[in-house]
């Protein structure tokens, strides 16, 4: 049958988040891969995440009525990629393997250091922002990086009958590519996150402890702040002006000094978001002619390492399906990849939705550039242009088939 010879990729409309189900034809049954399941707090989908999880779990039922997924992939621990895994129902789903980035390895020293740095930063930032009364857009970005402990617990310890958990790529050079009996005839290439020191540097939150101190200092009364000198050195502005009248310091200049560091909160929040994105798994599934690229939310560090590698660069040129990175923001899909690699007829899926606070996502020119090369580019939230032939749109998802 012709139909069994093609791969189906289904993109659930989770809102501002990701959840993809890949169905690969096998000899006796269809093999399933679930890539991520989560949504941003500020960008929910048309139905609640609970309903969506019910839907997914029933979509993966076998003839015997049992839900089975061969591989669950967690690209990275951001809320908009994992929040759906908080649901205890997943414990009734049989899962063969769980794949996570190497930074999730429970005992690897470097992985732990990175995780701890990220989660500590997320906690202190959230605390500082909450105390400062930051706006909900900023809070939502900051919350996204919180540990999402219950979801991660499910991925690390939950599901039914998990045979193996892989933390990718494994350190050995041969770990770049592998296959598993659960997905016959499929080769998996792990393009990221690399262990290259430049990429790792992108994962560690930038130094900003003192700015956090600074932010927090704003939330305590003046008397509780760090005082550099003994009390008796302090001169009130009025007295200073009377004593040193030749110094001209206007109110505006004075407040410029007081406002040093404003905007730092936004800077820290977005850099942390980027640091966690830097841990994203970037996978290429190869099955016959089909080359499916799931780049998670990988950003420049991972991408540039992949593009610089001759073998991978060649493989990227064969992409037939691209999960557009990071909800189609400007910096998760390099222009070089679009212009130099995406030359063949490809399908692309953008899991995103418009959130008023973040008008730059999805980035218009990126969508236009993709569509200029292929008419098979769809969004999860709306059919803003008529879907090309071969796409099937249902209320909760859109799917397509790919020739093997």
């Amino acid at each position, binding site marked *: 049958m012709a139909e069994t010879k093609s791969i189906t990729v289904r993109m659930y409309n989770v809102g501002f988040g990701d959840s993809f189900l890949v169905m690969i034809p096998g000899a006796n049954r269809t093999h399933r891969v679930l890539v991520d399941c989560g949504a941003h707090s500020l960008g929910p989908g048309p139905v609640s995440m609970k309903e969506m999880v019910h839907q997914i779990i029933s979509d993966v039922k076998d003839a015997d009525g049992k839900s089975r997924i061969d591989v669950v992939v967690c690209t990275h621990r951001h809320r908009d990629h994992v929040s759906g895994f908080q649901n205890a129902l997943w414990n009734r789903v049989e899962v063969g393997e769980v794949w996570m980035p190497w930074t999730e390895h429970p005992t690897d020293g470097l992985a732990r250091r990175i995780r701890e740095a990220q989660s500590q930063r997320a906690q202190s930032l959230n605390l500082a922002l909450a105390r400062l009364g930051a706006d909900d857009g900023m809070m939502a970005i900051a919350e996204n990086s919180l540990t999402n402990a219950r979801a991660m617990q499910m991925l690390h310890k939950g599901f039914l009958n998990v045979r193996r958990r892989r933390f990718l790529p494994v350190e050995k050079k041969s770990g770049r590519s592998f296959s598993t009996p659960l997905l016959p005839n499929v080769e998996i290439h792990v393009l990221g996150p690399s262990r290259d020191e430049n990429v790792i540097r992108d994962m560690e939150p930038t130094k900003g*402890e003192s700015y956090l101190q600074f932010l927090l200092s704003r939330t305590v009364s003046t008397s509780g702040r760090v005082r550099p*000198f003994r009390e008796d050195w302090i*001169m*009130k502005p009025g007295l200073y002006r009377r004593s*040193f009248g030749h110094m001209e310091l206007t109110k505006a200049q004075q407040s*410029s000094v*007081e406002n*040093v560091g404003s905007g730092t909160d936004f800077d820290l929040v977005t850099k942390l978001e980027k640091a966690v994105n830097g841990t994203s798994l970037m996978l290429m599934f190869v099955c016959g002619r089909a080359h499916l690229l799931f780049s998670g939310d990988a950003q420049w560090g991972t991408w540039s390492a992949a593009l610089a590698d001759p073998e991978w660069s060649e493989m990227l040129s064969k992409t037939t399906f691209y999960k557009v990175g990071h909800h189609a923001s400007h910096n998760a899909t390099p222009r070089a990849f679009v212009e130099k690699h995406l030359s063949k007829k490809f399908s692309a899926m953008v899991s995103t939705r418009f959130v008023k*606070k973040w008008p730059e996502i999805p980035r218009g020119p990126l969508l236009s550039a993709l569509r200029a090369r292929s008419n098979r580019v769809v969004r999860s939230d709306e059919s803003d242009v008529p879907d090309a032939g071969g796409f099937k749109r249902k209320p909760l998802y859109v799917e397509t088939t790919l020739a093997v």
Partner: protein
Amino acid sequence: MRFMSISKPNSGMSRPSTELAPPPRRPLKIFAFDPMLARLESTRVISIPIMNEPLRPGPQGSRVEVLDYDGVNECFYPAVDLDDPRVLMRGGLDPAEADPRFHQQMVYAVTMKVIENFDFALGRRITFRGRRLRLYPHAFLGRNAFFDPRMGAVLFGYFQAERARQGPNLPGQTIFTCLSHDIIAHEVTHALVHRLRPHFRDPSNPDVYAFHEGFADIVAIFQHFSFDGVLREEIQRTRMDLLKQKTPLAELAGEFGQATGKGEALRTATLDADPQQYERLWEPHDRGSLLVAAIFEAFFLTYQRRIRDLLRIASGGTGRLPEGDLHPSLVNRIAGEAAATAQSALTMCIRAFDYLPPVDVTFGDFLRALVTADVEMAPRDAHGQRAVTVEAFRRRGIYPENVTSLAEVSLVWDPPEGNLPMFPTGLVEDLASAARNLGRLPTQSNAVASGSGLSDGDKRKSKRYIALLSSYAKANASRLHLDVKLPIEVAGFHSSFRVAPDGQLLIDIVAQFAQCDESTKDELGGAPVRGGTTVVASSDGAVRYVIAKPLKSGASTRVKRAEAAGRTERQMEFVERCDQMDAQQAWCSDPADRNTRMLRMHNFAGLHSS
């Protein structure tokens, strides 16, 4: 009272014939490096002679003022009066971390030292366009200090040291960035570079901000070598090897690095030369350190060459020095050579400014400017310092664009193409008369009168120069590679007076013209493609150099047009690269922020830890 009359000439109290001239220098005490290094070695508290000027409490002088406003605690700390006899008799306040007035003194002293180095090298008195550079020694809580061009101020932060891995500091101790010589010198250099080349604030290629950072480090490091006592001690301790032995002379911000948990100084000058780094390093401080390394290597090799004869004498020709301490006289002579070499390296770097293009600087441009300036000043290159500098750049893969070879003659900027008319002579005369004021000590009365602004007479003159230069530029636009249809900005003009090593007086007139292609501004994130030309003329008005980085529309030769096209291309690539690395843009709530994103990503307030 008698004391006061000495510092106040013409007060009428004393007869002119017996009046004492004001002392040319004012000794002030500072930490040679910072409090941590001073604690480890008592000789690292030093006194430096600063050019004397009347000071009001602050200190507030004619060019800088220290404003001790603490923006976190929203309070002031009392201003030090360095003209107070009790302070004068001590040669300045003694170092005390707990006394904000000492902090003010140190910030003032180091700042003036940097400014004097620029004055000396550039042969003119650098002013901040009629305003005073402001220094806030305790502006905010944070591990940072930065120059803010908008405020015309350097702001220093203070912070608590790490509670673990704090190095030789107390856990949680308050660390003041304003007590670090290197941090002060670094930040003030940013202010001076900005004063001399305001368009170097535009991130148009990866070298621009790296140049700012590297240059600021160079000034901070080379000033160490003017600290006589410390230098002699380090020469004794390292047995003259200022490179292999770890010495604070070649390091930057020791206390800051330790207190922030880095376990070492913030940055170190090294000689490692890897040509790939120039391709790979993008972060401005990292990339700037290549510039520092090149200059430091040239310094070190020249220093070795200069002390070779002393070594021979001291070792009886064997080159091997006897065990034990070096003879103090030998140390003195070696220190003299090290200091002279360092000063010469620093002067060479600063002097290059007059020969830099007004926009879009690259390390290669800096090398060409440095070579040109030095050839003009000292054609002979007696110690070979210029030659080793070129070699040190080459070893790091830094080549100027569009030169045929690294020979001196190719590196020197090109003479003007065709015949350029003389610079306006009225201008030349005016500048020459202005020059008579060079180095003259401001008296109490004129310092007060001039206040913080330009006098009306100066403003009128300045307007007249600008008009003269503008019409000159328009009349000769094509030979200066300027687009006559676009506005031409006079980005700066001055004359400089220098005495060459051979005793010759050199007078230069330098003017910078700049223009920009506004249509590229939004797309390039707020930093449009700029073009511009620096013109260097002799005192008789004859134009000697035309250093042009034109816009495509302004380039009047095929070669220059190709260069211009290449520059635009490079800037677009740079912007794209920055976009890829930018974390913020995706989350901006106002799409118009895109049009200023490059300015947002690049500013001097960037954290000083990488």
